[in-house]
């Protein structure tokens, strides 16, 4: 059937080239997609960082006029939107893509083409949203904050295209994320190596699993909120129109129903990364693996029960405030458990402070500071003092930079040899860490003081008699030190990539399956499907102890046809592209553009369905 239809409807043949630009565009290889995610997201991280510079330069001294108030609004909106949706999430998605099949002993994810589609959705969505800076119309850039509260987003108060860019852009980015969520869950549930039960999976795989579950249940809520906003703005609907009796708080509830799980979507995989790094460089197994898994799952579930703590100031009344205050305090328990587990992992271990380890330890410290200030917001009475001040800005930067970004840096140093076949320079790496560590604290710690002194967030300037001059100056100096630290990473990256590939398969003497195969891994990952008898099975193969010396592993499954590899395809890229074109059409009120987008989308789906299997087989000496 497929071949017959392929002749009639598969209008583009499956591409077959293995190298060159177009082979990357049409790739369905999870490792290549992971690397594309990481590189794109790092570039977006630099874009968001540049926006942060502009914000900090504006605030370096009182009554500054480096940018206008309007531009400042656009800057902080795009800074947060970029960092959350286009930098940190896809950086983590890059790790998930690259590592997940390797860690569970699979040859790819469950749906390789959908995986590629996720990436293209992300790329085109990111380009779309950032193109708003170049849109030739007044107020083209989103400027309503990253949570775009109603009714600031109404046509009455935001007449330009800003909220439209934001709405359509996040819808596009969200589509890719949702699809990844389904893909990863199915991959983990269905494609683990023989013998790898759920409780023998590496901890990063566990955090990917829980994060994906959160994604598929949190993103529909934001999708609906965005669609409602779209209807309000495009068709004069009344979801958030106060004049017709609607409630602006309705948006806040819907947004944060997604928004708080999103916070944990940003941190759980980061926790997974450092839970891999710490045992490797302490030469000990992860302390309390079972507890770690349970607390990850607990955080995943409880993440859906705390959203209203973002809204203590809107007047929900004592009952609602109290309930959400309590759930917020409760969620810090599994988080605290994790911190003690990490500390206990290092305790008594042979700790080796490589760059990856430094970033992991830095994570623990900075994330704990961020967690403590977050915990303070759990008390509605205390939060009423802190809300909308720089104290909140301090909290969010400690958990997202000190937390997520430090873990991502740790992961980059740790898995770089596996991804690129080269070891990042350790000496530069140590500098990289210390400059970033000092720079970050210089940049974000003053926010605590500024917040307690009453400096509101999102203000574009302040007057000298407020007494905020000194700490703002310190913070701006800090952001440049932080940027210097990130530049050191780029230098290290450039320097390392000019070396020849010489990384060993297992440079860190590590514990999980990705280290059993060459660096970088071959296209088909594993010559032989690995079989597993214990958690950290690879470690016990190298160092059997009395509990793990006679492990019985399941037989290697035999596939008589050789190793089957999925074929490359143009369709994921086209589908992502034409979705975006359709989004542009909706935003511009252009029927022609919308029609092009929809027809293209339809054709891409038809092409997808009928292009045939297109896979090929690899024969490897010594087994499958």
């Amino acid at each position, binding site marked *: 059937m497929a071949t017959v239809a392929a002749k009639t409807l598969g209008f583009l043949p499956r591409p077959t080239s293995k190298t060159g630009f177009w082979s990357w565009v049409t790739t369905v290889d999870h490792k290549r997609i992971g690397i594309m995610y990481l590189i794109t997201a790092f570039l977006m991280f630099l874009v968001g960082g540049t926006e942060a510079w502009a914000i900090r330069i504006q605030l370096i001294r009182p009554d500054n006029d480096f940018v206008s108030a309007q531009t400042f609004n656009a800057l902080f909106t795009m800074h947060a939107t970029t960092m959350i949706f286009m930098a940190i999430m896809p950086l983590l998605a890059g790790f998930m893509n690259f590592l997940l099949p390797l860690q569970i002993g699979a040859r790819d994810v469950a749906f390789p083409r959908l995986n590629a589609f996720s990436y293209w959705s992300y790329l085109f969505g990111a380009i779309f949203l950032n193109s708003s800076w170049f849109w030739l119309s007044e107020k083209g850039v989103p400027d309503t904050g990253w949570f775009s509260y109603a009714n600031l987003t109404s046509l009455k108060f935001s007449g330009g295209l800003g909220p439209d860019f934001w709405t359509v852009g996040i819808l596009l980015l969200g589509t890719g994320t949702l699809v990844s969520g389904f893909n990863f869950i199915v991959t983990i549930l269905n494609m683990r190596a023989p013998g790898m039960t759920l409780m023998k999976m590496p901890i990063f795989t566990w955090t990917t699993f829980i994060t994906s579950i959160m994604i598929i*249940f949190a993103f529909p*809520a934001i999708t609906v909120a965005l669609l409602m906003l779209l209807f309000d703005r495009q068709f004069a609907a009344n979801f958030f129109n106060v004049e017709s009796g609607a*409630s602006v708080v*309705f948006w806040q509830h819907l947004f944060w129903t997604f928004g708080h799980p999103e916070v944990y979507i940003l941190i759980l995989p980061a926790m997974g990364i450092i839970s891999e790094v710490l045992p490797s460089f302490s030469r000990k197994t992860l302390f309390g693996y079972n507890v770690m898994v349970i607390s990850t799952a607990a955080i995943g579930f409880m993440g*859906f029960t705390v959203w209203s703590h973002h809204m203590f100031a809107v*007047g929900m009344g004592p009952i609602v405030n109290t309930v959400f205050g309590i759930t917020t305090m409760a969620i810090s328990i599994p988080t605290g458990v994790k911190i003690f587990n990490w500390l206990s992992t290092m305790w008594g271990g042979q700790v080796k402070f490589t760059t990856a380890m430094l970033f992991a330890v830095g994570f623990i410290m900075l994330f704990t500071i961020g967690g403590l200030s977050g915990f303070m917001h759990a008390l509605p009475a205390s939060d009423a003092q802190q809300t909308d001040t720089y104290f909140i800005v301090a909290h969010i930067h400690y958990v997202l930079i000190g937390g997520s970004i430090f873990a991502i840096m740790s992961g980059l140093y740790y898995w770089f040899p596996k991804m690129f076949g080269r070891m990042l320079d350790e000496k530069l790496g140590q500098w990289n860490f210390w400059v970033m560590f000092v720079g970050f604290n210089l940049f974000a710690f003053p926010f605590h003081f500024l917040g307690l002194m009453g400096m509101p967030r999102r203000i574009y300037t302040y007057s000298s008699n407020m007494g905020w001059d000194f700490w703002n100056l310190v913070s701006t100096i800090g952001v440049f030190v932080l940027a210097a630290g990130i530049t050191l990473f780029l230098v290290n990256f450039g320097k390392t990539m000019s070396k020849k590939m010489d990384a060993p398969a297992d440079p860190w003497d590590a514990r999980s399956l990705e280290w059993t195969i060459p660096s970088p891994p071959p296209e088909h990952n594993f010559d032989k499907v690995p079989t597993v008898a214990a958690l950290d099975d690879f470690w016990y193969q190298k160092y059997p102890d009395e509990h793990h010396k006679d492990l019985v592993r399941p037989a290697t499954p035999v596939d008589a046809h050789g190793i089957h590899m999925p074929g490359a395809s143009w369709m994921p890229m086209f589908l992502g592209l034409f979705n975006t074109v359709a989004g542009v059409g909706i935003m511009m009120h252009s029927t022609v553009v919308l029609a092009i987008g929809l027809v293209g989308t339809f054709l891409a789906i038809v092409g997808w369905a009928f292009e045939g299997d297109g896979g090929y087989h690899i024969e490897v000496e010594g087994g499958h």
Partner: protein
Amino acid sequence: MSNAEHQHPTFGTFVKIGIVLFLITILEWAGLLINGIPFLVKAALIGLSVAKFILVGGYFMHLKWEKKLLAWAFGFGFVLALLMAVTQKYVNMATPTIH
């Protein structure tokens, strides 16, 4: 499909369930004719729609015969969605601006 293929429902089973669904719909319609005991009628209507839900999910969507994981996955999503809807209704109403 491998499990319990032999107990796969027959054509007749599905038709019977179709008839039950028809009867439930009639009952729901008739329930609205009853006045004066709104609490009981509401409870009955919710009960009837739960019955429809279970019949369609369990039989038409084969959950009864599938691996339990699928029922758990869908059930988790459904219950979470239900809790979200109920909680959202409550917290939105708790905010004075709504009135």
